[in-house]
């Protein structure tokens, strides 16, 4: 007997999904290499004798004005970006989904407050709001993550609340209520599964936005501070160097772009795989 195909099977059929997953996995692997200090050079180590060298066997991505290895700094920056993205999107998912599901299910004033509050946050361009919050909180990676989490929580509220609103009037929920099931049980067993698909897709897309926001902040001088490496900060420093050292600008830029492309492709693949209407008939 043939087993029922899960969404993972469908996901693996999409080219963009696979390409995206490969790109993201490469970046995760590089981050782990940096996390376990296996990078070819110490990202902070200065070698003034080797300043501004082009890509070579010793320095794969070349060196910056202090003779620091750009490859090691790039993967260290990638590690920071991914950490911030994971923590911030994790927090945003947790709070957003909880508020959205509870608000949507209970309705009335609780829902009203949740919706109003997210409208307020929606009224700011993401980077501007993150900027103001980071500026108040501080520059550690946890502060940055909290700021980005606040910015992206309303998106998860909206994504989670929608399906709850459409499902909660359905007969099977009504019968569950008539049977006397508790609200937490109805929410957990009968409502939450409907929220799963859109939230998973949103997580992938939000990770890519979070990386863009994080690198944007560090480009502007908030978040990661020198001498620590961050991709946005490296691009910012490269402004003065790129004219005669293209590698200082090119490699960190390519890293950001690859991970964002990867996450977007993963998001597309997940959306197709999780949405029965979009599954290709094969």
């Amino acid at each position, binding site marked *: 007997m043939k087993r029922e195909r899960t969404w993972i099977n469908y996901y693996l059929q999409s080219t963009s999904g696979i390409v995206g997953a490969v790109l993201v996995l490469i970046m995760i692997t590089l981050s782990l290499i940096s996390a376990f200090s296996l990078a070819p050079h110490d990202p902070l180590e200065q070698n003034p004798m080797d300043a501004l060298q082009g890509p070579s066997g010793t320095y794969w991505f070349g060196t910056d004005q202090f003779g620091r290895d750009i490859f090691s700094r790039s993967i260290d920056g990638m590690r920071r970006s991914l950490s911030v993205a994971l923590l911030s999107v994790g927090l945003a998912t947790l709070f957003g989904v909880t508020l959205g599901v509870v608000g949507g299910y209970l309705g009335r004033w609780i829902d009203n407050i949740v919706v109003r509050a997210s409208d307020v946050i929606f009224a*700011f361009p993401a980077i501007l709001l993150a*900027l103001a919050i980071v500026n108040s909180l501080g520059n550690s990676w946890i502060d940055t993550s909290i700021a980005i989490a606040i910015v992206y929580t309303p998106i998860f509220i909206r994504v989670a609340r929608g399906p709850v609103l459409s499902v909660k009037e359905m007969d099977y929920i009504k019968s569950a209520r008539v049977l006397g099931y508790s609200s937490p049980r109805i929410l957990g067993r009968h409502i939450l599964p409907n929220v799963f698909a859109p939230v998973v897709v949103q997580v992938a897309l939000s990770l890519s936005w979070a990386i*863009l926001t994080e690198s944007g902040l560090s480009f502007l001088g908030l978040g990661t501070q020198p001498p620590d490496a961050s991709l946005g900060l490296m691009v910012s420093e490269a402004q003065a160097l790129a004219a005669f050292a293209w590698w200082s600008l090119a490699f960190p830029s390519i890293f*950001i772009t690859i991970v964002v492309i990867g996450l977007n492709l993963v998001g597309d693949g997940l959306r197709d795989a999780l949405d029965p209407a979009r599954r290709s008939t094969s």
Partner: protein
Amino acid sequence: MKKSSLLSRLLSVATTLFGISIFVFLVLRVIPGDTITSSLGIETGALNQEQIESLRKYYGIDQPIIGQYFSWISSFIQGDLGFSYSTGAPVLQLTKSALLVTMELALLGTTLGVFLGISVGMFSARKPGSLRDFLGQFFGLLALAIPGFVLSTTIVTVMANKFQYFPNGNEYMSPVEDLWMNLQQMLFPSLVLGIAVAAPVMRTTRSALLETVDKDFVRTAIGKGVTAKAVRLKHILRNSLIPIVTMTGIQFGYLLGGAVIVEKIFALPGMGRQILDAINKREYATVQSSIMVFAILFVTINLITDLIYRRIDPRIK
């Protein structure tokens, strides 16, 4: 549109704005280091307690927090946005000129983005699954993934060093002072913002077109013998406009966020740079009022999009 629904929409905009004002006020209140320390720097240490008290009184930060909020918001509504401590200029005056720069940038960026997005979207949708579709979609993906600051930095580096062309190195000229110079200075920043807008517009255009192609009225038009070009422009594109307009409105708002970074790189004296500068100088009043102005602009744009949307789609009441 029904009057009552417009009224309730306006009412919800008003409550949102009220919420925003509280939020802006609170977020900036958490900033460490108060106005006195930030405007006097190390010299604060030389003040005695009495002098500090009188300065606190002068800046109004001796009042309880609710009082501070109301005195800020009531003067804000009356058009008094405070003074910039570093230059002494009224923030309202700074904001007026900065707002014009940002609005020009946003309008040019959106126009470029919509034009580019719709063109590439149409280009892609002509033959789904073909090489041209792949190229179009690849453009969309790149436009989405390359951060504005990377694109800007690259453009600045290449133009300034390879072509010795960098109009933004000169002093900023408003369109009234020197239109030609102004347009040159706006070209690259609005292109960077336009590319960011083009990505989602392109995706929306492509999927809306592909959806409309299969509709009965399109088949009827082709059956009637309408030329292929007329079908594409008058029947398909026109009926795909609703999602495109909505997406454009949303993007116009987000573009204001991108303006913060682009204005900094291209040295344009707009709202984004005003806020960044004020943040760096820790000027409460300027940051607070400027962010508030920014948010009002954003909410207004969303309201306008919503109204246009209701107008072109009669199904929405």
